[in-house]
């Protein structure tokens, strides 16, 4: 067992998760492929969404994969950074909007 939790080489082994549970892995990868194909959104648009979500969920594998994918698909550095700001703004806003719950509680218990 490695003495660290993340290893860049593991990204390339993603496909091997089927070794322990094949039917579910097959379903996942088939679905995953369909999700990222051309649809009502283009594959390029989906790549940028994935990049933003990768940052929101802070998955190093996904960040690696979708930084490459979005750049390959032609997004500029500035566009990619703006997408991450969107993710960060939602994450920051999500924390901050709970401030209203804090306010409700404080108002409830204070004189």
């Amino acid at each position: 067992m490695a003495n660290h939790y993340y290893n860049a080489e593991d990204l390339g082994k993603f496909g091997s998760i089927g070794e322990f549970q094949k039917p579910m892995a097959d379903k996942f990868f088939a679905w995953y492929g369909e999700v990222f194909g051309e649809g009502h959104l283009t594959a390029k648009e989906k790549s940028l969404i994935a990049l933003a979500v990768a940052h929101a969920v802070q998955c190093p594998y996904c960040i690696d994969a979708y930084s490459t994918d979005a750049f390959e698909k032609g997004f500029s550095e500035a566009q990619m950074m703006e997408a991450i700001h969107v993710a960060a703004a939602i994450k920051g806003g999500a924390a901050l909007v709970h401030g209203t719950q804090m306010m409700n509680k404080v108002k409830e218990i204070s004189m």
Partner: protein
Amino acid sequence: MKSLKALGSKLATAREQIDILEHGIDHEHPVSTFPFAENLRNIGLLPLKPTELEIFQINMGKMCNQVCQHCHVDAGPDRKEIMTRDTMQQCLEALKNNPSFKTVDLTGGAPEMNPDFRWFVGEIRKLEKKIIVRCNLTIILANKKYHDLPEFFKSHEIEVVSSLPFYAKDRTDKQRGTGVFEDSIKALKKLNETGYGMEGSGLILNLVYNPSGAFMPAAQNSLEKEYKEVLKRDFNIVFNSLFTITNIPISRYLDYLIKSGNFEKYMDKLISAFNPVAAQNVMCRNTLSIGWDGYIYDCDFNQMLDMKVACDSQHVSEFNSDALKNRSILVNQHCYGCTAGAGSSCGGAVA
């Protein structure tokens, strides 16, 4: 920026490049070495055989007005190796005697810089072959004597294939040099004014996309759509088709991969993306590549690695179509570049 040869780089030699491709940098850093030939064997394509001799690609020399970071020819203004008229005569003779060649594809360097370029094109036209010129665009503006190239191309019904690594300035200039994007746009406008790329003109202008970094090309049809939208909207430029080309890990691109620490990862990526359909359709099966000195190769990349065809017809002066048709095509690890994903050729994706 100078060529690797002028810099005295080890990578200017074919032997050093092949050694790195086969064994990794300094034999220390691990590189995926699953032999390309084994992949071909697994799908029944070894030995790799030609399908037909259709495209006669001539590298007219390494001289170029640009020094692109990714250039597999290591071309540039400091390279003086160019084809002589005698060798061109030998090419014409081979073309005359072999009607299966329908297309002559002229490349370089900047083929237009060869002083016999226009004479040669005129002679090929007499043989009624389709002519492609791989024009780097900026040559048209580089010197007054080249300003009339669009008219020359038109009068000889040449198909123009031009590199424009991206529809935005930053990525293009990073790869091809400062100012190349603006000059390329000016040159494309001149080609459009001459009728190139315009609907109904019959004058074909195709563009080439190649990644400006250690990554693969995106889907050709999606990129073509974007190129068309952006070039029309921002510059009022039109063209026919976009060819996406994967950078082959040799010469100056190999130097870039090594210096940027991307070599092993890039090779892994190409190897894991091996596509049997692309392998079926590789361009070396219907193309021959002639070097500036008249030697014959399976493709322009094998040419740069000094891998001459494996048969008795190694020079255009002794062109023997039977020997060439029956030869086995030489392959090595760089060939993964043409078989990854949607595949890659001088005409773009192949799968």
